[in-house]
């Protein structure tokens, strides 16, 4: 007997007990269940929840691997032990030394994120007696990508517990949540432990413990530099390729674009949301540029630094692209109707840049903008659907009259 039939037998044994959902989760993770349905007609489709989730994870893996290299690269670069890598394939970037530090720092974050999150999912499944949902697979991968590299693991564990319980399980689990759980985790971290989530010390591994000593290093993000009207030391190519300090997975715009194309090609991510988010961001950027050009805001204003950034550069600094591709497109929390998606995405981009420029206390507003629009998504859908109903009623009247 193979493992598969052994598991099928075990399933019979566990049937009806409290542990059944936990067992089934592991079982169906490995094999298709041997149950068949008996009545009615069924359409069998391969694009179930699990495949959707796996596709998104595959789209994120390049970002994760790049993030590992970048964690080591930024660390070594800040220490001055290596030269700046010239371009994406720079010889000092893809090195073993960089990867070792990256694995050492990033892998524990991934493990804690998945460990804590899945444990809570299992506990809730056992208590409530429903099957374990695959929803956490993506969240668990997103969480390590959107936190700074030196975040203490216990903080991540607390935040993941908060995000999964308050952000998702309270509302009834996967598919019922109003807020994106991964962003709930980030919001919790941001408000609970602001010193670990912002400033110029957290983005480069080793900067926090060296603070105040002779070996002090710092890695201000580009947004941080702009907000303080300092000169930005990174070239546009560095920003695009991602050789800059930032949260682990969000720096490399080129890999995010590849991920986006993959998601669009597999029809897992909504291109409408991605496109409209970018359009919204560009629109807000253009407005700010216009304000600067009109001379309303001069260089003495504290908003000048970020307002004067050329509008298209807003896309390659900060995490707007990452948010647009992996966060805003979450099918559960986004708007469902096509017209609603345009409105939802546009407002995310628009508000993201607005927060980014107007509130120096929140150097990055993307996660706040997405959470805000998550809350409004059902309202947008409601009005889109009602509008459609009204239009059709009118047409009906014209015909009958």
């Amino acid at each position, binding site marked *: 007997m193979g493992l598969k039939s052994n598991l099928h037998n075990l399933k019979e044994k566990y049937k009806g007990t409290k542990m059944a959902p936990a067992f089934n989760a592991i079982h169906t993770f490995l094999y298709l269940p041997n149950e068949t349905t008996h009545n009615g007609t069924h359409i069998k489709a391969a694009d179930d929840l699990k495949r959707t989730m796996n596709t998104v994870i595959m789209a994120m893996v390049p970002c994760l691997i790049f993030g590992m290299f970048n964690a080591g690269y930024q660390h070594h670069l800040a220490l001055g032990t290596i030269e700046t890598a010239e371009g994406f394939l720079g010889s000092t970037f893809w090195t073993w030394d960089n990867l070792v530090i990256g694995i050492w720092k990033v892998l524990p974050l991934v493990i804690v994120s998945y460990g804590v999150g899945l444990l809570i999912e299992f506990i809730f499944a056992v208590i409530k007696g429903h099957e374990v949902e695959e929803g956490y697979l993506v969240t668990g991968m997103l969480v390590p990508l959107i936190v700074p590299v030196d975040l*203490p693991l*216990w*903080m991540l564990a*607390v935040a993941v517990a908060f995000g999964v319980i*308050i952000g998702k399980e*309270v509302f009834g689990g996967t598919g019922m949540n109003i807020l994106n759980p991964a962003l709930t985790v980030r919001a*919790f971290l941001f*408000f*609970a*432990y*602001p*010193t*670990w989530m912002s400033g110029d010390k957290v983005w480069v591994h080793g900067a926090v413990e060296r603070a105040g000593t002779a070996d002090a290093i710092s890695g201000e993000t580009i947004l941080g530099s702009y907000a303080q009207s300092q000169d930005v030391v990174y070239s546009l190519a560095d920003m695009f390729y991602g050789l800059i300090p930032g949260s682990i997975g969000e720096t490399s715009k080129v890999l995010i674009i590849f991920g986006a194309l993959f998601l669009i090609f597999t029809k897992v991510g909504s291109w409408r949301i991605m496109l409209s988010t970018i359009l919204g961001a560009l629109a807000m950027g253009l407005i700010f540029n216009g304000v600067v050009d009109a001379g309303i805001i001069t260089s003495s204003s504290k908003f000048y630094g970020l307002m004067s950034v050329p509008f298209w550069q807003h896309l390659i600094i900060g995490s707007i692209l990452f948010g647009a591709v992996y966060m805003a497109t979450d099918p559960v929390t986004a708007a469902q109707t096509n017209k609603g998606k345009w409105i939802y995405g546009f407002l995310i981009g628009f508000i993201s840049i607005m927060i980014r420029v107007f509130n120096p206390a929140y150097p990055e507003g993307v996660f706040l903008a997405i959470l805000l629009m998550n809350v409004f998504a059902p309202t947008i859908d409601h009005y889109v659907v009602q509008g459609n109903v009204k239009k059709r009623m009118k047409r009906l009247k014209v015909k009958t009259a």
Partner: protein
Amino acid sequence: MGLLSKKDAKLITDPLADNNPITIQVLGICSALAITAELKASLVMGIAVLFVLGIGNVVISLIRNIIPSKIRIIVQLIVVASLVIIVDQVLKAFAYELSKTLSVFVGLIITNCIIMGRFEAFALGNGPWRAFLDGVGNALGYAVILLVVGFFRELLGSGTLFGIPVLGDPIEKTGLYSIGYENNGFMLMPPMALIIVGLIIWVQRSRNKALIED
């Protein structure tokens, strides 16, 4: 219970659990969110409401038969306002720092729905003794939630209880802080109070399914 009959005792015990003004009737939420970042403030707020509601209920109950029902809300407001002004003045005289922390929220006891709610729902239709017990019971139910929320918010947010450090010194890095623990700044913000109240409601309703509506 020799002192209280079974029915009277229920007036005190019901609001503490299954008919709690905050978690079941969802009244008086604003102050529960605003002032519970410190345990001391929660305690003083609880006592203030106990005073106002206990005495106010008796007063309203005593004059319930001579209040013209058309203007009863105004009469109730006058009673609450007088009592709240007493509390406010006492706090300003004897605990000035604390009255600063509580700021406007002492004055806002006037608009606390629990108080007007009890006047309307109970004191207007019952004798002074029972009205007193009801007032005390509801104020205690309010205070219990405030204290629970305040306990968690102050402990996790500032690492202190009643202002006394219990988890060590965050600057000197002693106690829990020496192993990397840090205070949770989110706990000091009002949204977290809402979430804690929500969690209390969750625990309470999953223990007693009869409380779940619809």
